């Protein structure tokens, strides 16, 4: 009787250190692993944050090493039991972002991982807050029981928690936890207003009612220095760490920061961020991982002082495998499949059903990385067939074009929200897109205000792109005022003001609309781009990020960024061309939307967001417009508004496939 076995070598790429490592071979990268453990120990022992730099070829096991470190910390803490060593807080940061938004991106990743529940349902944020309370002597005994009790009480009494107030008081100005942040942390610990509190931590737009419910004061200057505000939040949250509960930050995909050609500035910004984190925290380990071929350029770009901090504790080299390590890895990988392990136990050859000769044949090409070895063995394993062993056949082979097309589509279907905002998508993706298109628009070298996400120039023309996604109200009005000042100080620059098409400016937001109108009257462009364009741009920049970091693989081959660039140039979707045409002036004069038309379109969108289905007669009456005007505008809003009837009688709120999938 034959046994059907899954191929133990399929699914080799580990892209997230939160994944459980498949098979740990202690001898592979053991020195590097031990050095990481020592570094964790170092930040536990003394109040001095430090840095470790890991580098290796693509597929050398950088992410696997981080996953192994995380799992090791968890196991160690579990073995120690309550009151013993605590599992370090683990934060994974993939740097597929713009260097102008580094701190905002870091805050987003920090919040996501802090709110990640552990095996007992307790989040990392719960753990770090309980730990702080215990270490300040504010909670005795079982912290979890105390928390359960407090949560129970909070259901009946909406007030604050005295112990937390005491904690924030004791942490004092050193921790720089703002009053608003204290309130938010209290809500999260007590499991109150969770959705709104998380949105606040991520600096998402919240209505005045939501802010009121949370009890936080609105910060109307919020976009003045958004990076600075994000930096403060990150440092405040990191200051909750302590000698018994350090924080490990793992920075991956550093290469993705430099998707456009201006590598040096991007990497310098990263170096400065690491130095700031190191100087402003006490028990934080900062692990940065990059590809070896990027190392020399990285060192030169970040500068000596910051580079020394990045690698202060150690520089760890992940080498290709030697034969002995390769053999152990292959054996462990096969032993991870119980049915196969049982069959193997009867065999004298430890590599059965593979032969040593065939496994080692990869060395005729050069020492392999773990990823190359696993892909090589996957093919060998599938070629093996006898009476007692049937291997589940491999997935059908695809061409690079088919693979890239599927990879882009997979990323495009993920909604642009939460961690990934429209502003970040544009700031990170716009320049690579322009390069792919062969556009003459380039990034200006001029220093720009924090409000401007990109300043592009072509010949004598210069366009500042600004995202205006703030919720309507004083925050947005203030932003419009700052834009007006910018325009006054530099009249030669054109302005393109962008707003997420899913958040139209409500007719109720009178002051915001008036201010915007003043800007439009000054010749500024107001753009609510097609959501499809934004989603495709988001997919494009993430695909390029994966390629530049060596994380895009077809079989064992790492797909090079240049290949992706060339493919994208051939496959550029109309949505992306439309997006660029909407943002940047073209030589041909396009149709201009009058402010009145713009206002009407927003009003229709706003109405449909609340009523979903509404007759044209009704809309015309509500907005005091003619039916023909309503119909004409509706036909211009094809991605947001559906039209029913011939002649049109009803409008309805259009929901895209992606929104349906994720709703």
């Amino acid at each position: 009787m034959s046994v059907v076995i899954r191929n133990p070598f399929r699914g080799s790429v580990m892209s997230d250190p939160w994944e459980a490592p498949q098979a740990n071979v202690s001898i592979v990268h053991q020195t590097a692993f031990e050095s990481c453990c020592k570094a964790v120990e170092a930040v536990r022992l003394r109040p001095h944050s430090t840095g470790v730099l890991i580098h290796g070829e693509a597929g050398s096991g950088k992410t696997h090493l981080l996953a192994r470190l995380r799992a090791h910390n968890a196991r160690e803490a579990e073995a120690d039991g309550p009151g013993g060593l605590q599992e370090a807080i683990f934060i994974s940061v993939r740097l597929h972002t713009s260097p102008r938004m580094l701190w905002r991106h870091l805050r987003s990743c920090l919040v996501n991982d802090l709110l990640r529940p552990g095996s007992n349902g307790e989040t990392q944020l719960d753990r770090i807050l309980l730990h702080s309370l215990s270490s300040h002597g504010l909670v005795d005994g079982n912290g979890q029981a105390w928390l359960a009790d407090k949560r129970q009480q909070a259901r009946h009494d909406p007030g604050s928690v005295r112990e937390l107030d005491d904690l924030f008081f004791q942490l004092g100005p050193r921790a720089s936890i703002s009053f608003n942040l204290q309130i938010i942390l209290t809500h999260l610990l007590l499991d109150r207003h969770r959705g709104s509190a998380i949105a606040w931590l991520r600096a998402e737009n919240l209505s005045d009612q939501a802010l009121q419910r949370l009890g936080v004061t609105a910060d109307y200057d919020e976009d003045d220095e958004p990076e600075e505000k994000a930096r403060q939040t990150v440092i405040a949250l990191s200051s909750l760490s302590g000698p018994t509960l350090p924080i490990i930050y793992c920075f991956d995909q550093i290469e993705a920061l430099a998707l456009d050609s201006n590598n040096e500035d991007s990497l310098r910004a990263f170096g400065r961020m690491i130095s700031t984190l190191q100087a402003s925290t006490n028990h934080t380990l900062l692990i940065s991982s990059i590809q070896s071929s990027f190392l020399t350029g990285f060192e030169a770009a970040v500068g000596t002082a910051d580079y020394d901090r990045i690698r202060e504790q150690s520089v760890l080299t992940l080498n290709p495998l030697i034969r002995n390590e390769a053999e152990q890895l292959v054996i462990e990988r096969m032993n991870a499949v119980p049915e196969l392990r049982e069959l193997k136990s009867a065999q004298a050859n430890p590599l059965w059903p593979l032969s040593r000769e065939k496994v080692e044949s990869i060395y005729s090409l050069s020492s392999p990385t773990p990823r190359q070895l696993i892909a090589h063995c996957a093919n060998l394993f599938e070629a093996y067939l006898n009476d007692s062993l049937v291997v589940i056949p491999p997935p059908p082979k695809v061409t690079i074009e088919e693979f890239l097309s599927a990879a882009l589509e997979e990323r495009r279907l993920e909604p642009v929200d939460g961690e990934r905002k429209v502003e970040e998508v544009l700031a990170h993706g716009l320049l690579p897109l322009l390069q792919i298109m062969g556009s003459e628009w380039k990034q200006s070298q001029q220093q720009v205000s924090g409000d401007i996400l990109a300043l592009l120039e072509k010949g004598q023309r210069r366009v500042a792109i600004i995202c205006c996604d703030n919720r309507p109200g004083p925050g947005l009005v203030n932003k419009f005022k700052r834009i007006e000042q910018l325009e006054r100080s530099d009249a030669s620059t054109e302005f393109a003001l962008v707003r997420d098409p899913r958040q139209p400016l409500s007719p109720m937001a009178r002051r915001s609309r008036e201010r915007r109108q003043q800007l439009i009257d000054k010749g500024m462009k107001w753009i609510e781009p097609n959501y499809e364009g934004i989603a495709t741009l988001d997919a494009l920049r993430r695909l390029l990020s994966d390629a530049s970091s060596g994380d895009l693989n077809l079989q064992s081959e790492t797909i090079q960024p240049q290949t992706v660039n060339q493919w994208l140039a051939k496959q550029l979707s109309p949505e992306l061309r439309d997006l660029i045409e909407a943002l940047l002036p073209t030589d041909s004069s396009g149709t201009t939307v009058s402010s009145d038309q713009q206002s009407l379109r927003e009003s229709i969108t706003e109405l449909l967001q609340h009523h979903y289905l509404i007759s044209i007669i009704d809309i015309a009456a509500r907005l005091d417009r003619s039916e023909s005007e309503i119909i004409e505008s509706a036909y211009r809003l094809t991605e947001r508004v559906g039209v029913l009837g011939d002649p049109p009688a009803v409008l309805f709120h259009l929901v895209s496939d992606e929104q349906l999938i994720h709703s």
Partner: protein
Amino acid sequence: MLSLSEEAAFLLRALGQFNAPVAASRFEKSLPKLGPVKRSEVRPLLDRLLKQDLVRIDRQSNKVTYWLPALEEKLAEQLIALLQQGPLAPSGVEGKNSPLGSLPPGGRKSLLNRLKKERRIFEFPAVKGTGNRLSVIPPEIQDYLQGMIEGLFAKLRPLSVAFEEAGVHTKEDFYLQAHQMWLNSLPVKISTMPEPVEVPSGEVAERLILAGMTQLDSAAINGALVSLTKLRNLLRAHFPGKVDFDGAILTFAEQERIALHRHVHVSTLSQAEKDDLVTDGRDNYFIGIALRV
């Protein structure tokens, strides 16, 4: 195989803190009392490192001075930068304020000889004036001929001696004779062809590679990656051709004592950039070398 103890690595790091050669006694005093190396062990350990070509030494009567090859390389770069501005007399690079001023006389001489051997600098007779000159550009014979021809013209004209009477029928004859006369008169033999270098192999090659790695980065002994482009430049005197260097590195890698790291985005490199890397002819381009620790 070259393997360095923690103590040796500590001494190398400590020596690296000095930006000039340091007297043995001062170096010993600079070491922490509770450090991994006792004072009595310093000199024997340094002598061992000297044999492995990892430190340099100068002994003058009672004074012993140590420095790292990396410091020597730094001074060499400063000297080359100075010579790029124009040739200088050897005395001009030996003074207290010159780049090599901090080196003891023995070290200075040996460094100059090494740089000449590696053809990174050249010494030749002054075109105008007396004595020799150091330069980063090889001597141009034309410069000397020009001077001699002008000198000859100046002498022959007042005497009304015709070229034919001197056995010179054409201008080319005149150049050939002048060239020959000049070659015979030179105090230093100049060869337009570099002397053939015997390319090291086996253990000698491995020792040179390891010494070069630690010279470029003292952390190499702990497994830090060293750029193969920098290593190639450093060892050019020993492995003058690309094939020689690439061959030595690839042979060494076969023994699994060192690891080579590939460039993953080869298609982004120009041909010149590729040539600087080590290649095995199977489309692998290696950027760095690391000792397996």
